[in-house]
């Protein structure tokens, strides 16, 4: 495997975690978030700062990143999740813009210069700096995320979430506590995005606000919609497709974004439900239903 391919695979893995976590919010809780990159960024900064300032080892740094972003998700979700879809979209969009500006203006985050020299993870003396090992680490995190969401989605709680997505009032009538479910899923999704941020920070070893702006939020959203909302496999395919697509278009240089935008519109007209819409390619044989 070439170094370039490894690099893409690691980034693809990080995006898979992001897409799956956003898919929990969109595809399963039926809520719209336009600021997912904010949680990704918070995770990256928390992980980087704890390991730079307090010499936290990677697992601890990643854990604190997840806890902290989860806390942010909780703090944002509690007051806002009673808002309707479109309002939630704008609140999360605003949250993303604000977080981005906070990264840019705070002293501790290094402002526009960002943070450099983030140590690569090493566990028990084994450094994960070589890309093949880092890919392994990323894959472990992807598997963890996949397993967690898969178990969740196919549990009692997962069915409750789907009920909320399909018809909130009916779900309430059936005795599902819809606000707490929405807040819980938002918190979990934020924590997973924090994990992705931590993985990114310790892989690239240099972070600045540019990586976590609106552009990234939209990219993750596109991955979920292109792959197919409400499908875990869809989120994986969407994340991989949109990680690889710009690379494949690289030979067209200046026309790269132009083709990217046109393909996005064309794809949605061709398949509005996304590549793997609900239930198109299910992994039913893995579930115990």
């Amino acid at each position: 495997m070439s170094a370039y391919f490894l690099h893409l695979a690691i980034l693809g893995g990080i995006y898979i975690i992001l897409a799956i976590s956003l898919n929990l919010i969109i595809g399963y809780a039926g809520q719209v978030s336009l600021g997912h990159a904010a949680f990704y960024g918070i995770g990256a900064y928390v992980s980087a700062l704890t390991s730079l300032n307090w010499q936290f080892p990677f697992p601890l740094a990643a854990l604190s990143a997840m806890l902290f972003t989860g806390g942010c998700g909780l703090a944002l979700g509690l007051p806002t999740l009673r808002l309707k879809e479109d309002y939630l979209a704008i609140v999360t969009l605003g949250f993303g813009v604000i977080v981005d500006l906070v990264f840019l203006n705070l002293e501790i985050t290094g402002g526009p210069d960002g943070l450099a020299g983030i140590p690569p993870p090493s566990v028990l003396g084994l450094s994960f700096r070589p890309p093949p090992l880092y890919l392994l680490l990323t894959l472990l995190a992807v598997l963890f995320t996949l397993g967690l969401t898969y178990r969740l989605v196919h549990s009692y709680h997962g069915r409750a979430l789907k009920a909320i997505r399909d018809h909130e009032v009916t779900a309430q009538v059936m005795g599902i506590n819809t606000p707490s479910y929405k807040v819980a899923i938002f918190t979990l999704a934020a924590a997973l995005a924090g994990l992705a941020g931590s993985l990114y920070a310790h892989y690239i070893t240099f972070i600045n606000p540019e990586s976590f702006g609106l552009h990234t939020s939209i990219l993750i959203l596109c991955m979920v919609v292109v792959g197919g909302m409400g499908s875990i496999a869809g989120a994986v395919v969407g994340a991989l497709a949109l990680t690889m697509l710009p690379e494949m278009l690289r030979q067209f240089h200046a026309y790269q974004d132009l083709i990217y935008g046109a393909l996005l519109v064309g794809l949605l007209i061709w398949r509005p439900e996304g590549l793997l819409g609900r239930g198109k390619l299910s992994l039913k044989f893995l579930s115990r239903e």
Partner: protein
Amino acid sequence: MFLQQLLNGLTAGSVYALIALGYTMIYGILGLINFAQGEIYMCGAFVAVLLLGTGQVNFYLAFAGGMAAAALLGVVLERVAFRPLRGSHPLVPLISAIGASIFLQSLALLLFGPNDRPFPIQFNFSTITIAGLPLSSLQGAILAAALGFMGLLVVFVRYTRYGKAIVACALDRDTARLMGVNVDRMVALTFFIGSALSGAAGIMMAIYYNATYPRMGLLPGLKAFSAAILGGVGSIPGAILGGLLLGVAESLGAAYVSSGYKDAIAFAILILVLLFRPQGILKGRGD
């Protein structure tokens, strides 16, 4: 100082309001957030600048040309990127709009290059003092023009057949269709008007900041979107009020709190307002 900031805020706010009108009308009729509105704004500015650059067109003609191009772009977008997706999950047209926005931005980048273009003609705007308040006549002209466009829109929507048909579609598309309203044509008309207003806003901002560039629509678009929601989405007076409020809040915030957080202030206020009044300041749909 305070009054000056207030005026700066009102000027920017009136432009946000113009774009917000496009958002709110399109949202009212289709329930769709047209993320490419900022690119329509950019298109209006570019066409006007190019027309003026030829040296053969006077300012008013170029202004009308920019608005017409923006309106046309809006109608084409509706036909190509949104109409085929009607009836699918609300997020799908949103992503399609984002795709269209990426496409248009990079098209502009290819055609015009990344650099700022100054506005080709210079205006000799003087500063007049009214009651001790220095008012640049440029700001006055922008405010007057923006308010004029808004007035025209309100009259159009309230008192003409087509305006009423648009409201009918916004209230209930199916019933409007049963009443003999050609819904597709009304949707196209909504895009036409909303985009023309955004185009006008783009031209005014190109004059105000003396810069036209491919990404110029991004932040004004986002802020106008917030303004539309702030005022109560689907409500025309709400969009106007929301735009003005946002402009003023941002200008005062930048002056008295921190200029580094200028863009954050607008969104922070938006979040706070939504928390306490989730339906927007003026509740309404299809007003």
